[in-house]
C-alpha cells in the first residue's frame, strides 16, 4: 500500500493544479447538491439556496489548506515556501547575507581543508591488507643519542625464533646506495630497499602488475629480481605494463623486473625499487650475516592472531633484555639500548600526528570564532526581526513554523558558505598535499572524497541549526507592547546581551591562543634563520658527486677515484669566475655518510658515559677555506697529508671540547674504535689532532653541532665525493658551466644536489616556514573575524542606545564622556578576553613545544606582544563606534524616539 500512498503524494506535489481542480470540482458538486436539497426542502430560490449552502460549507480556501494537511504534503510545500522566502529575505539584506556567507565559508573551508588532511593521513586505515595489525620495530640507544640503530642479521634471527606474538617478521634495508644505469648509459641514483622474500606478504601488499617476492627469492642462490614501487613505475616507465620481464642494471648487476606493487605509504623512507637480498653483495657478506652489531635492517611484523601490540611489546622487551645480557659486546650498557614496538599506522605518522591535530584544533577554533560572529550578526538582525516574528506569530504562524523559517534561512546561508568553503579547500589541495608530504608518507592519500564532503555538509548543517536557535521567537513579550510606538526599541534582553558579550570575549580569547601559537612559530622561524650555520661564506656552490656501483668494490679503487676527484676539482678551479674549488666527502650542512665510536689517547671515560661518537668527514687542503669554516687552532690539511704520511685529523670545536675539555687538543691523539670498524675500510690507528675548526650545523639548523672528525681526503678511503666551489659572483650563473666541465673530465659521473649554501639552509627552514605560514594565516583569519565582531557588537550597542546617549548628553554629558563610556564597554570585553586568552595560551603553547626552536612555549615577548597587538587593534576597533556615539545629536536622537 505504501507505494500507492507515495504515488498519491508525489502526484499531489507534482500535479498540484490537477489536484486542485479535482478538489474544486468535488466541492462544487457538494455545494450544488446541498443547494438543490435546500431548495427542495425549504422552497428557497436557487440563489438563496446556493448562498446558504456556501455558508454552511464555510471558507473554501481554509478547507483546501486542511486537505493539504490531510494529504501529508503540507510540510514539503511549506519548506519550499520557506526556502524561497529565505532567499528573498536574504536578498533584501545583502550585506548581512554576504558577511555571514563569507565568515562561514572561511570557517568551514579551513575545517574542511584540515579534515581532508587529517582524514587522508591519520584517520583512514592503511591501504595494506590487515594494516591495523602491522607493527614496526625500532631499536634505539637513547643515551648515545641514536634514535634508530636498526637490526643485525643475528638479532633478527633471535626475534624470529623467540617472538610468539608476531606471526611473521619482514626485513627492509635501505642503507646501501644504488645506482641504476639507464638505457642512455647515464647513471641515476635510486632509492632501493633490500627486502626479505616475505616482505610484501607480511605488509599485506598486492601487485598491480606481475608478481611480488616470496620465500624463494631469499638467499644467495636466488635470481636477482626487482619490484617497482607504484610511483616509480609511473614516473620512470609511464605506467607501461610491458615493464615486466625487462632487466635493469643495479650497481652493475643485471636484475629482472618481476612486478609492480600497489601504492602504499613508503615508510620508513621513499623507495623506488624493492630488490631481493642477492642484489646486494654487502647483505650477503659473511661479516654482515654473523655480526650482531652490524645493523642494516628495519623490521616490520604482523601480530599473531588474538595478540595485542602491548603483548608483543612485552614479549619483545623480554627477549631483548636477554639478548642485552647475553651479548654485552654488542650492546654498550651506557647507551641504554631498547626496542620499541608500535603500530605501523602510528609509526608512519609519528611526526605528522601532533602537527595535524594541532592544525585541526586551530581550524576548529577558527570555525568557533566564525560561528560566534555569525551568531552575533544573527542576534543583531534578530532584534530587528523580533517584531516581524511577533507579528507573524500574532497572525497565526506557529512558533515551529517560524523556527523552521529561521532554519531555512540559516541553512541557505550555511550551505552557500559551506560550498564556497569546500571549493576553497579543493583549490588549496595541492598546497595541502605539499605540506602534508613534509610530515607524512601518506600525503598522497589526501583527497577530497565523499567522506570529506559529507563532513563539510554536516558542519554546515550543524552550524545552521546552532544559529537558528539563538534568536527568540515571540513568547515572553506581548505583541501589543511591541507594536505600540513607545515600545519600539531595539535592544536585546539582559540575558541575550550577556550571551552576546560572552561570544565576543570567547572570540578574543581564542584569537589570543591562535596568535600566540603563530607568534611562537614565527619567532622560531626567525631564530632558525639567524642561527649561525658555521659556514661563513657567500657565493658557495656545493655539488654531490657520489661513487656509483657497488660501494664495497668502489672503495677499493681509492687511487683511481682520488685521481678522478682531484682532476674534477682542478678543472673546476681553473674556470673563470671560480675562486676556489675543493673536495671533501660531504658538503657542509649535510649529514655525513659515516659515524663511529672514538677514543682519545690517555683519557679514561667516566663510568656510565657512553663512548664518544663522531661523524667522519674528509676534506682536502682548500675545503675549510672554500666553505668558510674558520680554522680556530693549529693547521688545516696540507698537500703532504697523503697516503703513507703520518695520520692526522682536524676536530670541530665542540667535539674537541667534549673530548679534551680545557686541554689543548692540538698534538693529542685519537683513534676510531668499536665493533663495526672491522667491517669498514677505516682503521683504528692513532691519529694526531693537528687543528680545530668551527662547528657547522650538519644535522639541521635546529640541531646542536654534530661532533665531527675531519680526515684528509687524500689520506683515507673514499666513500663519497662532494665539490665545494667558491665563486666571485652569483654561483647560479656558473652552475651550468661547472656541471659541463665535470662531465668533460668524467662523462659518466653522477651529479646530484647542486645547491648553494643559502639553498641548503633554505631547504632546512622550509618546513618550519610552512608551519608558521599555516598557523599564522589561521591566526590572522581569526583575528580579523574577532575584530569585526567586537566592532560590530559595539556599533550595535551604540545604535540601540542612541536615545539613552541622547538623554545623557542633554543632561550634560559631553562627547568625551560618551566616547569613553563606549570605549569602556569595549575595553571590559577586551580585558576579559585577553585575560582568558592569556591563560589558555599558556596551556595551549605547551602542545607546540616540539615544534619550537630557540623560544620557550611561555616566551614572554610573544605573549606580551600578541596581547599588546590584540589590545591595540581591539581599542581601534572600538574607536569607530565610540566616535559615532560621541557625535550623537541629543535633539535628533530624542525626536527619533
Amino acid at each position: 500500500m505504501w507505494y500507492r500512498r507515495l504515488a498519491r503524494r508525489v502526484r499531489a506535489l507534482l500535479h498540484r493544479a490537477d489536484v486542485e481542480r479535482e478538489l474544486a470540482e468535488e466541492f462544487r458538486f457538494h455545494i450544488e447538491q446541498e443547494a438543490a436539497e435546500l431548495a427542495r426542502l425549504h422552497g428557497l430560490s436557487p440563489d438563496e439556496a446556493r448562498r446558504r449552502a456556501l455558508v454552511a460549507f464555510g471558507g473554501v480556501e481554509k478547507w483546501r489548506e486542511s486537505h493539504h494537511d490531510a494529504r501529508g504534503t503540507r510540510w514539503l510545500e511549506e519548506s519550499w515556501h520557506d526556502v524561497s522566502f529565505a532567499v528573498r529575505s536574504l536578498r533584501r539584506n545583502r550585506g548581512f547575507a554576504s558577511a555571514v556567507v563569507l565568515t562561514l565559508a572561511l570557517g568551514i573551508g579551513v575545517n574542511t581543508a584540515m579534515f581532508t588532511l587529517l582524514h587522508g593521513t591519520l584517520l583512514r586505515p592503511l591501504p595494506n591488507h590487515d594494516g591495523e595489525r602491522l607493527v614496526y620495530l625500532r631499536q634505539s640507544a637513547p643515551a648515545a643519542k641514536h634514535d634508530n640503530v636498526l637490526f643485525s642479521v643475528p638479532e633478527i634471527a633471535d626475534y624470529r625464533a623467540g617472538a610468539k606474538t608476531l606471526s611473521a617478521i619482514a626485513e627492509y634495508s635501505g642503507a646501501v646506495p644504488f645506482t641504476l644505469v639507464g638505457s642512455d648509459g647515464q647513471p641515476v641514483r635510486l632509492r632501493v630497499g633490500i627486502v626479505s622474500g616475505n616482505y610484501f606478504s607480511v605488509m599485506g601488499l598486492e601487485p598491480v602488475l606481475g608478481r611480488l617476492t616470496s620465500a624463494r627469492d631469499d638467499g644467495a642462490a636466488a635470481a636477482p629480481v626487482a619490484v617497482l614501487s607504484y610511483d616509480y613505475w609511473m614516473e620512470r616507465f609511464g605506467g607501461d605494463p610491458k615493464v615486466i620481464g625487462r632487466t635493469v642494471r643495479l650497481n652493475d648487476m643485471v636484475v629482472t623486473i618481476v612486478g609492480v606493487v600497489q601504492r602504499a605509504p613508503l615508510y620508513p623512507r621513499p623507495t623506488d625499487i624493492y630488490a631481493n637480498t642477492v642484489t646486494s653483495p654487502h647483505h650477503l657478506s659473511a661479516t654482515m650475516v654473523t655480526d650482531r652489531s652490524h645493523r642494516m635492517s628495519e623490521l616490520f611484523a604482523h601480530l599473531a592472531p588474538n595478540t595485542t601490540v602491548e603483548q608483543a611489546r612485552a614479549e619483545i622487551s623480554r627477549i631483548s633484555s636477554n639478548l642485552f645480557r647475553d651479548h654485552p659486546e654488542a650492546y654498550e650498557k651506557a647507551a641504554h639500548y631498547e626496542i620499541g614496538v608500535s603500530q605501523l599506522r602510528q609509526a608512519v605518522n609519528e611526526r605528522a600526528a601532533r602537527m595535524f591535530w594541532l592544525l585541526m584544533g586551530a581550524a576548529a577554533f577558527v570555525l568557533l570564532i566564525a560561528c560566534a560572529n555569525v551568531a552575533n550578526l544573527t542576534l543583531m538582525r534578530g532584534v530587528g526581526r523580533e517584531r516581524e516574528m511577533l507579528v507573524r506569530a500574532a497572525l497565526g504562524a506557529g512558533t515551529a513554523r517560524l523556527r523552521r523559517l529561521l532554519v531555512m534561512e540559516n541553512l541557505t546561508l550555511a550551505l552557500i558558505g559551506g560550498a564556497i568553503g569546500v571549493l576553497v579547500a579543493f583549490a588549496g589541495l595541492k598546497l595541502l598535499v605539499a605540506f602534508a608530504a613534509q610530515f607524512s608518507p601518506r600525503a598522497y592519500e589526501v583527497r577530497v572524497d565523499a567522506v570529506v564532503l559529507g563532513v563539510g555538509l554536516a558542519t554546515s548543517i550543524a552550524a545552521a541549526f546552532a544559529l537558528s536557535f539563538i534568536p527568540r521567537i515571540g513568547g515572553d513579550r506581548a505583541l501589543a507592547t511591541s507594536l505600540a510606538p513607545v515600545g519600539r526599541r531595539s535592544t536585546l534582553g539582559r540575558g541575550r546581551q550577556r550571551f552576546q558579550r560572552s561570544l565576543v570575549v570567547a572570540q578574543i580569547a581564542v584569537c589570543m591562543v591562535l596568535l600566540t601559537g603563530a607568534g611562537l612559530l614565527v619567532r622560531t622561524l626567525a631564530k632558525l634563520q639567524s642561527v649561525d650555520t658555521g659556514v661563513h661564506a657567500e657565493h658557495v656552490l656545493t655539488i654531490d658527486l657520489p661513487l656509483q656501483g657497488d660501494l664495497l668494490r668502489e672503495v677499493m679503487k681509492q687511487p683511481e677515484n682520488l685521481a678522478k676527484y682531484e682532476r674534477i676539482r682542478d678543472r673546476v678551479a681553473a674556470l673563470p669566475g671560480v675562486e676556489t674549488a675543493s673536495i671533501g666527502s660531504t658538503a657542509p650542512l649535510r649529514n655525513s655518510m659515516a659515524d663511529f665510536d672514538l677514543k682519545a689517547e690517555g683519557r679514561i671515560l667516566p663510568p656510565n658515559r657512553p663512548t664518544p661518537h663522531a661523524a667522519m668527514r674528509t676534506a682536502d687542503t682548500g675545503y675549510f677555506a672554500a666553505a668558510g669554516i674558520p680554522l680556530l687552532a693549529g693547521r688545516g690539511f696540507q698537500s703532504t697529508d697523503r697516503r703513507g704520511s703520518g695520520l692526522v685529523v682536524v676536530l670541530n670545536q665542540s667535539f674537541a671540547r667534549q673530548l679534551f675539555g680545557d686541554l689543548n687538543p692540538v698534538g693529542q691523539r685519537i683513534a676510531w674504535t668499536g665493533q663495526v670498524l672491522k667491517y669498514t675500510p677505516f682503521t683504528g690507528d692513532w691519529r694526531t689532532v693537528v687543528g680545530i675548526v668551527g662547528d657547522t650545523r650538519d644535522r639541521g639548523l635546529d640541531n646542536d653541532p654534530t661532533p665531527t672528525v675531519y680526515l684528509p681526503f687524500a689520506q683515507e678511503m673514499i666513500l663519497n665525493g662532494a665539490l665545494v666551489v667558491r665563486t666571485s659572483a652569483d654561483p647560479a650563473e656558473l652552475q651550468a658551466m661547472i656541471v659541463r666541465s665535470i662531465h668533460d673530465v668524467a662523462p659518466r659521473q653522477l651529479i646530484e644536489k647542486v645547491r648553494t649554501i643559502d639553498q641548503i639552509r633554505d631547504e632546512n627552514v622550509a618546513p618550519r616556514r610552512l608551519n608558521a605560514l599555516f598557523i599564522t594565516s589561521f591566526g590572522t583569519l581569526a583575528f580579523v573575524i574577532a575584530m569585526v565582531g567586537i566592532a560590530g557588537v559595539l556599533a550595535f550597542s551604540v545604535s540601540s542606545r542612541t536615545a539613552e546617549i541622547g538623554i545623557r548628553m542633554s543632561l550634560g554629558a559631553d562627547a568625551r564622556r560618551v566616547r569613553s563610556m563606549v570605549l569602556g564597554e569595549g575595553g571590559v570585553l577586551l580585558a576579559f578576553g585577553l585575560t582568558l586568552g592569556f591563560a589558555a595560551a599558556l596551556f595551549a603553547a605547551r602542545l607546540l613545544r616540539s615544534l619550537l626552536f630557540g623560544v620557550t612555549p611561555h616566551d614572554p615577548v610573544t605573549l606580551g606582544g600578541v596581547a599588546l597587538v590584540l589590545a591595540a587593534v581591539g581599542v581601534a576597533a572600538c574607536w569607530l563606534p565610540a566616535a559615532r556615539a560621541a557625535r550623537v545629536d541629543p535633539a535628533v536622537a530624542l525626536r527619533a524616539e
Partner: protein
Amino acid sequence: MTQQTDLLQGTLDLLVLKTLTLGPLHGWGISKRIRQLSQDALDVGQGSLYPALYRLEDAGCIEATWGISAEGKRAKIYELTALGKKQFAKSQNQWQSFLTAVEHVLSAT
C-alpha cells in the same frame, strides 16, 4: 481549523466507513446519509468530512473514482477497500468496548 480530539476524529472515520459499507457514495451523499442515519442528530461539517475522506484515502481504507452520481452528474465516488473493511471491523470493536467502558464508569454508584 477546529480542534478535534483523536477520539472524535476516530469517530468520524468510523461513521464514514460505516456509511460506505452500505455501498459506494460521493462526499455529499456520505454527509447526508450520516445525517439520516443519526436522525439529524449528527451533522458532519464539510470542513471535517473532506479532510477525513482524504485521510482515509491516504491510509488506503477507501478508494475514490470519478463516476456519475444518481442525479446524473460527474462526481467523485468513494468506495471501501479490503483494508477499509478490516479497519472498520476493528474500529467498531474498539468503539463498542469504549462505549462499554464509559457505561461502566457512568453507571458506577
